Structure formats: structure tokens, C-alpha cells
């Protein structure tokens, strides 16, 4: 009987172990003798441009460097899961990749964590470095002033609209709204017109993650009175709380959903809603407008995920307006880079691989295939870049007034708090004032009372 009782106690312990959380499974390095460069990046059904780039670079690199094996380790995940997985892999030298795809927003935090190799010495001897724009060079700088990453390309965001839907609602195109009110007027016109189209989709909530902010709330917030300092005050380096702009932006979100201009809330919260936007709604003349990135045409071009021949004639893009029409417009920019792992055994080879991936020819084909905004002057000047799709020139002009997110280590948590605020408003769980107050409380608990500033 005693034995039986201890068997039960043991099974209790074993079952208790199930409660523990599980880490990730690492991939191991290649065999001895040869030198191996491991490369980590995202490859999904909807995003193959980077895989194309690395496959090509691998062939070139292995041809030029005998005995070197490039081990491509694509990760099929969304941006957030990829970043988590990458950060976890950096925790051990056995799993850390040598070269990897790195989001600009996490460069500073990852450099502080010691995951990234400082590249200044290498960049000083790389002739092509001077081709990179000032902003692109800055994107890879860490808090200590050293450069840790090299930009692959950037993006901007604007208001993409369907010409047939707007014309059917009596709005002449090309269309350029000057205030938020103009956007709402368009939505109302589409709603009252004969078409059944969804008037104006505005991403919000936690379902679409960071996209809710980049292609939604920030486009509003950065167009309020505080402008570029509406989220994070650059002068004091503190997070802004209690601003009227935050409440106004949430009110705009509420109006869009309460008036039925956007998709129903449950569809808006589906993480894959953007696929409907690109794949069904715009090609089916079933959506008036939405805020999306400069990469939008990449989904519709031949070889894209949602090929659509008529996109060039049927779509238009406008700068998203500020709240009251001050300034030319609002755009948010992100962008990804390539970086070298601090724990790499082969730093020289890794950097050489990075420069080959970012060479003029490789950059040009990547930027064109992925509809990125070029960061190399020679690529931007190439005729094939301008001609890649009819919108390149216009979305590139948004660079003049675009904003970058504050790349601090708390950013992910703040971003999630913003997503929760918009979700609370569109689901009716909170009024804009309540949601803004809850956001203020959350920010203070994330960064501490000394790191917030009331505006």
C-alpha cells in the first residue's frame, strides 16, 4: 500500500511537470572541417522575396568561397513569433544564427542584450556603405552609437483606395483628403452609394498585432497636435500620457466602427483579415479604402500572393491626412535589416555574406520583388526601381514626412497596450476616455512613473 501511495505521489509530480512551460527546439550547427554560416529569416507563403534573395546569395557565396557551406534556416512564422524565436536562439551560442533578418525596432534592445556584433570596423572598409541613405544608416545604430545592422529597405504607409468604388460614390479621383473629416465623408459617401462595398477598413485591436498600430492607430495619433512626439516625447525621452490627441484618435476609431464603415468587429480582429483585404476585397471592388504599406502592390504583381492584373488602373494611393490638415500628411515607416550574431565563430565570413546579400544587384532585385523603398542611392536611381510598379514614385515621396517608432526595449509592451486600447473601443468595452486612461495606467506600470510625461 505504501508503494502504491508513492506511485500516486510520483504520478502527481510527473503530471505537475506538464504545467511547466516549454522552450524552443534549436537547430544544430553543421559538421566539423567545413565552415558553415547559418542564416535565419522569415519565409511564408505570402513572403518569399527574402528566400529568393538568400538562395541567390548562397549560390554566389558558395561558388566564391570553397569549403564554406551556407545553411539557410527559414522560419515560417509571423513577424512577432519570428522575433521571439530569434531572441530565444541568441541565448545559446549553439543555436544563435550567424546572419539574420532583424527588425529595426529591436536593433537597440538586441544590441544592448549583446546579441548583435558591432559592425563599425567592417563597414569602414566596405565601399558600398556610402550608398546607404543617412536614415538607413541610422536605423542600425545602437544606444552606444555603434552600428549593428545594415538596412535591407524601408517602407511608408498611405491611404490606398479603390477607384471604381470611390467613383461610384461620386468622388473624383485622384483623391487626396486633407483632414480626418474628409476621410469620414468619403466613407459616408460610399456607404450611402449603391455599392455594397465596405467603405473604409481601419485595422485595430490585438488580432492584427503591430499592424493595427502601424496601419491604423499611429497614422491617426501622429497626425494629432503633438505630431511626431504624440507617442514618445523625443526631447525628454519619456512616454506621453493623458494627451487629447490619444483620445481624439480613439474617437475616430470608434466612429469608423460604430458607423459601420469598417468590417464587422469579429472579422477585424481576425489575424488574417489583411489577406481578405488584399485577396478579396480590393480586387472584388468590395472595399473603398484602407491604410496600408508601400509594399501593397507586391501582393498583386505577377508572382505575388494575390495576383491581380488590373490593380494599376483600379487602385490609387493618397497620403493619409493629419487631423486638421496641418502638414502634408502622415506616414509610418518600419523596415528590416541584416545583422551578424555576436556569438558567431566566423564573423569575417558572416559579414562578407551580408555584404553580398546587400550588393547593388541583389538589393535591386529584392527591393523590386518585395516593393520596398530603396535605401541605396544607386538602387533608387535605377530605372527598373521606378518602373517596378506605378506607385513607387508616390509612396517614395512619403519618406519626407514619415515617422519611425521609438525603438526602446519596452516598445513591444507599449505597442500591445495601444492595441488593447483600440480593441476595447471597437468592441464597446470602453469609451475612448476610459480606454485612454487605462492605457496611461498600463504605460506607467510598464516603464515606471518617472518615464512618463503628461501632455
Amino acid at each position, binding site marked *: *500500500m505504501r508503494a502504491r*501511495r508513492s506511485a*500516486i*505521489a510520483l*504520478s*502527481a*509530480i510527473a*503530471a*505537475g*511537470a*506538464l*504545467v*511547466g*512551460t516549454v522552450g524552443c527546439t534549436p537547430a544544430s550547427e553543421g559538421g566539423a572541417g567545413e565552415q558553415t554560416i547559418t542564416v535565419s529569416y522569415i519565409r511564408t507563403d505570402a513572403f518569399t522575396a527574402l528566400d529568393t534573395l538568400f538562395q541567390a546569395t548562397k549560390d554566389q557565396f558558395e561558388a566564391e568561397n570553397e569549403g564554406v557551406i551556407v545553411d539557410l534556416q527559414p522560419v515560417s512564422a509571423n513577424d*512577432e513569433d519570428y522575433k*521571439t524565436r530569434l*531572441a*530565444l536562439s541568441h*541565448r545559446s551560442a549553439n543555436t544563435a544564427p550567424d546572419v539574420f533578418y532583424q527588425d529595426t525596432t*529591436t536593433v537597440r*534592445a*538586441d544590441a*544592448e*542584450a*549583446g*546579441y548583435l556584433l558591432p559592425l563599425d570596423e567592417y563597414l569602414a572598409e566596405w565601399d558600398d556603405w556610402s550608398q546607404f541613405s543617412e536614415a538607413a544608416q541610422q536605423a542600425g545604430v545602437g544606444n552606444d552609437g555603434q552600428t549593428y545592422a545594415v538596412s535591407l529597405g524601408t517602407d511608408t504607409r498611405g491611404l490606398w483606395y479603390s477607384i471604381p468604388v470611390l467613383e461610384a460614390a461620386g468622388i473624383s479621383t485622384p483623391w487626396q483628403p486633407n483632414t480626418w473629416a474628409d476621410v469620414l465623408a468619403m466613407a459616408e459617401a460610399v456607404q450611402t452609394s449603391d455599392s455594397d462595398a465596405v467603405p473604409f477598413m481601419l485595422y485595430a*485591436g*490585438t*488580432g492584427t498585432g503591430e499592424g493595427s498600430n502601424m496601419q491604423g492607430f499611429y497614422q491617426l495619433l501622429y497626425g494629432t497636435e503633438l505630431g511626431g512626439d504624440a507617442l514618445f516625447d523625443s526631447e525628454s525621452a519619456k512616454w506621453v500620457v493623458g494627451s487629447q490627441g490619444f483620445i481624439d484618435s480613439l474617437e475616430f476609431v470608434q466612429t469608423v466602427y460604430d458607423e459601420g464603415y469598417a468590417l464587422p*468587429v*469579429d*472579422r477585424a*480582429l481576425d*489575424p488574417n483579415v489583411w489577406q481578405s483585404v488584399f485577396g478579396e476585397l480590393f480586387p472584388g471592388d468590395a472595399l473603398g479604402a484602407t491604410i496600408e504599406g508601400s509594399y501593397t502592390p507586391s501582393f498583386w504583381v505577377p508572382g505575388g500572393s494575390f495576383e491581380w492584373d488590373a490593380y494599376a488602373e483600379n487602385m490609387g494611393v493618397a497620403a493619409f491626412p493629419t487631423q486638421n490638415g496641418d502638414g502634408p500628411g502622415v506616414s509610418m515607416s518600419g523596415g528590416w535589416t541584416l545583422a551578424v550574431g555576436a556569438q558567431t565563430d566566423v564573423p569575417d565570413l558572416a559579414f562578407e555574406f551580408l555584404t553580398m546579400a546587400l550588393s547593388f544587384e541583389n538589393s535591386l532585385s529584392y527591393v523590386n520583388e518585395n516593393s520596398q523603398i530603396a535605401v541605396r542611392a544607386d538602387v533608387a536611381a535605377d530605372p527598373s526601381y521606378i518602373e517596378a510598379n506605378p506607385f513607387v514614385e508616390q509612396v517614395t515621396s512619403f519618406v519626407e514626412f514619415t515617422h519611425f517608432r521609438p525603438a526602446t*526595449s519596452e516598445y*513591444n*509592451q507599449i505597442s*500591445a497596450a495601444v492595441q*488593447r486600447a483600440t*480593441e*476595447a473601443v471597437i*468592441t464597446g*468595452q470602453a469609451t475612448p476616455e476610459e480606454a485612454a486612461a487605462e492605457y496611461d495606467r498600463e504605460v506607467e*506600470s510598464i516603464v515606471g512613473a518617472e518615464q512618463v510625461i503628461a501632455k
Partner: protein
Amino acid sequence: MTHAPSAGSPSRQRRRTRGSSALRALVRGGPLVPAAILLAVFLIVPIMWAFIGSFTNATLTGVTATQPEWVGTANYERLFADPDFSLSLWLTLVFTLASAVIGQNVLGFAIAYLMTRASRRIAAIVGGVVVLAWVLPEIVAAFIAYAFFSREGTLNQLLGLVGLTGDNWLFIAPMATVILANIWRGTAFSMLIYRAALSEVPPDLMEAAEIDGANGWQRLVRVTLPVLRGTIATNLMLVTLQTLSVFTLIYVMTAGGPGNASATLPVFAYQEAFRFGSIAYGTAIATVMLVIGAVFSLGYIAVLRRAEADR
């Protein structure tokens, strides 16, 4: 200690002779050493790591990723003041009670009990169908459940056949859908345990009860259930602990959403640790989960002891 033998019993005294008892302990304990080492490495060490980590400010990235600092009980203070945590705790209890203690346990017993009275063929078919959900890998079962409840899913198509329009169930009733999915997936475990136990109920006991004039319900409540008390406690303990730790099913179906409406503790811990990068806060939540699991286990073990003492 229910029946400690009296110290004066002769067998006890003989066993206490020194040399032989040390040898016996060695011989008996020897084979346990590898298992003990494995347990220590893969269970105790991670638990200690999580426990210690919950008193630091370790993060996924940033300075504190590689040089975490000791912050005392700050994570726990934040945890107990966090409304998301109270909600998560509540959802975990609802999920565990509804899907494991009530759903899997009662349904599993009911099926097992009915199978003893059903024809062989019916029993085999029912058993096969129930076990099918259980042998599927969790991720596959989760996708099937998602495909069943989603807006264009099987459920709504079936409703469409009878002229009803379904809603997006994962959105309007996230907890109900994950609870049903977990009952579907996990009932087989309880069913198998109870089938085995029911076949052990002595037939003469049932015959005696029958001769005494007990009807079916009385035989179930007065004879079968008391005999199975130990099995019921063991089964409850196992399904409770399994259910407390369910992650994949919920994460695939609702990812804890909409909002936090289905974020049970494992999902909440994952979000905090890996989505928002606060490893330390995530481990604090994991530690609380361990404590809850331990409390449940101790409760069930106490019940089990009483059941055995009564026997």
C-alpha cells in the same frame, strides 16, 4: 500516516537491524538512481530556474536579457495587482472545472459505465470514436476544433443545412468553444481509466446488491462509485493537472482572445514571457501555476488516502 504499525511489532524490530537495512536500502534504492537523476535534471532544475527567475527582471531582449537583476517580490506584487491576472486565474478555474472535473470526468465515466451494459459492437464503435480525438496530436485536434467553430466552419455549415445562420463562435463564446473542444479531446482518457476500473468491480458484490433488491441507480451510487473512489480521485487529479496546462488547444483556437477573454494562465504566461518579452513576469505566472497544481494534487491525495483508509 493511516496505519503505522505499533513500534513493538517483531517484524519492525528485525527490519531495524543496522547492516542489513543499509544493504537493503542500497539494493532497493539503486535502480531508482537513474530515474531520480533524470527527474532532477529535467524537472527540479527547470522548476528552480523558473522560481529563481521570477525574482529577477529578466527579459527576452535589452540589457536585462543577459544581466538580469534581483528585484525581490516585485513581479508577484505586480501580478497580484494585475486585473488581467485575476481574470486569467478565474478563466483557468472555469476551464478546469467545466472541461476536466465536470466534462471529461463525468462524460468519461458515463460512457465507460454505459459501455459495460451495451452490446460489444456498439461499445467498440463508441470507444473508437472517443479515442480518435485523443490519439490525434494536440495541434491537429486544435486545428480541427478551430475549423469546426470558426465563422465558415463545420458547425455553421451544419446549422446552414437546417436554415440557421451561425455566428463566429470563437469570437462570441470563446470560453465555451475551448471548453467543448477540451472535453472532446480529453474524454477518452477518463473513459479508458474508468473502463479498466469498472472491470475490476467484483461481480459477486453486484450480484449481492441485486439479490438485496437494489435497482440500477442504487447499485451505481451505493456500490460502484464507492468501490471506485480511489480511481475517481486519481483520475480527477490527472485530468485536472493536464487541463491546467492546456496551451496549444487554446492558443490555436483563440490565442487567448478576443482581448483576454480566453487567456488562461498558460496562455497568459506565454504572452507575457514571449510576446511582451518579460521572461521574469512569465516565470512568476508559471510559479503560481505550479502552486495551484500542487494544491489540487495535495487535495486529491488527501481524498485518496481517506478512500483507502475506509476500505
